[in-house]
């Protein structure tokens, strides 16, 4: 399995997580076929669009072998939230927290991806972070995951 396959699988999993319904009705992928702009450059539209990015390239994870080693990499699901000027910040924060939990529960549950050949683990990679964009008009939430897989 390649890291690209893992990223594609996560693209498939995230829309199956149940969004909070307050700030986002559903999660939908941003320009998977070839983005016209980066997600963080987006300035309008509905909340809930996301992408999946590789944040740390694969390193050897220490398995014994001649070749075909086990690798460890880090990816992140990034979810974009539009925050209109009238939007209640408390509700937005609550929605983000709920959505993070839903995405982590969906993506990290091995019952959802263990059939993927050569994927050993897809686990939470640390605390999600937020980035305020466009003078407060949008918030980008980054949810990291650690991937352990066999290349090949």
């Amino acid at each position, binding site marked *: 399995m390649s890291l690209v396959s893992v990223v594609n699988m996560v693209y498939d999993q995230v829309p199956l997580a149940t969004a909070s319904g307050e700030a986002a009705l559903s999660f939908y992928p941003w320009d998977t076929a070839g983005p016209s702009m980066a997600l963080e450059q987006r300035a309008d539209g509905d909340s809930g669009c996301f992408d999946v990015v590789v944040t740390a390239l694969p390193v050897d994870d220490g*398995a*014994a*072998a*001649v*070749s075909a080693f086990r690798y460890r990499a880090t990816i992140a699901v990034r979810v974009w939230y539009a925050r209109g000027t009238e939007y209640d910040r408390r509700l937005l924060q609550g929605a983000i927290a709920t959505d993070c939990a839903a995405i982590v529960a969906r993506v990290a549950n*091995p*019952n959802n991806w*263990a059939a993927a050949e050569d994927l*050993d683990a897809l686990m939470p990679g640390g605390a999600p972070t937020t980035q305020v964009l466009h003078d407060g008009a949008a918030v980008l939430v980054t949810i990291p995951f650690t991937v352990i897989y066999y290349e090949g």
Partner: protein
Amino acid sequence: MASKHITGVRVALENQAAGFANVDSSTGIPSVSGLTFKALELDSGDIVPPGDPATVERTDARSDWYELPPEPDTIWSSGARVRRRTGSFTLRCPLRTIGSASAYATYADMPLHMLLQSSLSSWTPAAASDTVSSAVSATRFTPTTLGRWEPGQGIAYDLNGRREWSFVTDDPANVFHSPAFSASAATSATLRTAQTLFYRAGTDPGYSVCVELSGHNWQSYAYGCRVSQIKVAYPPSGAMVEMTVQAAFITDASASGVVAANPTRADGARAHFRGSYAVVTGTIGSTSPAELARTRVGLDEWTLTVDFTLTPVGHSDDIVGMANLEVSRVTASLDLLLSSPSTTYDSDLWAQTQRSVLIGLGPVGAGNGAAFYIPAAVEVADPLKRDLGGDTVRQRLSLRSGLWGLDDGAGADAGAPWDSPFRIALAL
């Protein structure tokens, strides 16, 4: 120049050839002749040349302060002393199960299972699965094929997207099992059976193994091996099995040191605790066959340790100096760190309460997941003494395998794991 970063381990059952330590009858020295090795999936960090030379320090009287060469404890062959080391080494393996049984047709073929069965008995069910003919209760079902179920063997059931585990306690017509599933096994549902590793006094463990440890320009063979400790922990990346392997005889073949092959990984998924259950029952009582209700517990950590006392059965026929390494005592320990303390367990030490404790691992699907089961766990620490090692107050249960006699083994097939005080189930 040789890199130390390419290493490998292969395992062979010694019953394929001459038995324990595979001693060549014409030389009295172990050899790899007749052994078929399988490459083990494991972490490379612990793979080093194992063992210490078997020598005796000389205490002869001497005329000055000088050292005498230690006396090698070995035999002579072709005019030279035979190189001999003894000792133990550690292997860390991902816990991966058989999956679709393509890479390995049976658990008996899998090198991880070869190591586990070297000190445990292993029970193979008649088939990998069965369907429920009719639902009865959370602790009973009517099977389609009764002959696929024997007292003591593990059962895996996929319910609500999670893998649940239990163990058969009787099979008169319905199958009785304990602890309970979270709901009745539904009519027409598929239940998976499990390769069940266990110990029980009077039941011999499996075959000894030969282990080949290799790197660039070095290679060691350990003969007459059995595991002296199995330790299972759960890092978020999936369950790891750490095995300490005791060898009766270790020698080198470094001149031909190469890593022969990549490990052949089994088809199953790495076993994960996420998406499965840890289950504790009430007091086990005395009703046989047992059908105990379950309580799911949230755990921050758990560690399983199984210690085997290995006793050499001595003889002088060959360089190995023993006819077998016999398992003379076993203790299974399970330490649980409960996320939220429960007053239910506070008095277990003082009341000498025994409960069944089961750690289930997923994921769902054929040949995936595993379970560790102590049917009569004895508390050996005070659960009321809260654990303050984290930011929250938690409760630690320190459990040992106690006496279990609530499986009904009447009429069971020979070798079935009923009434065993500790079991490992590997899904089929």
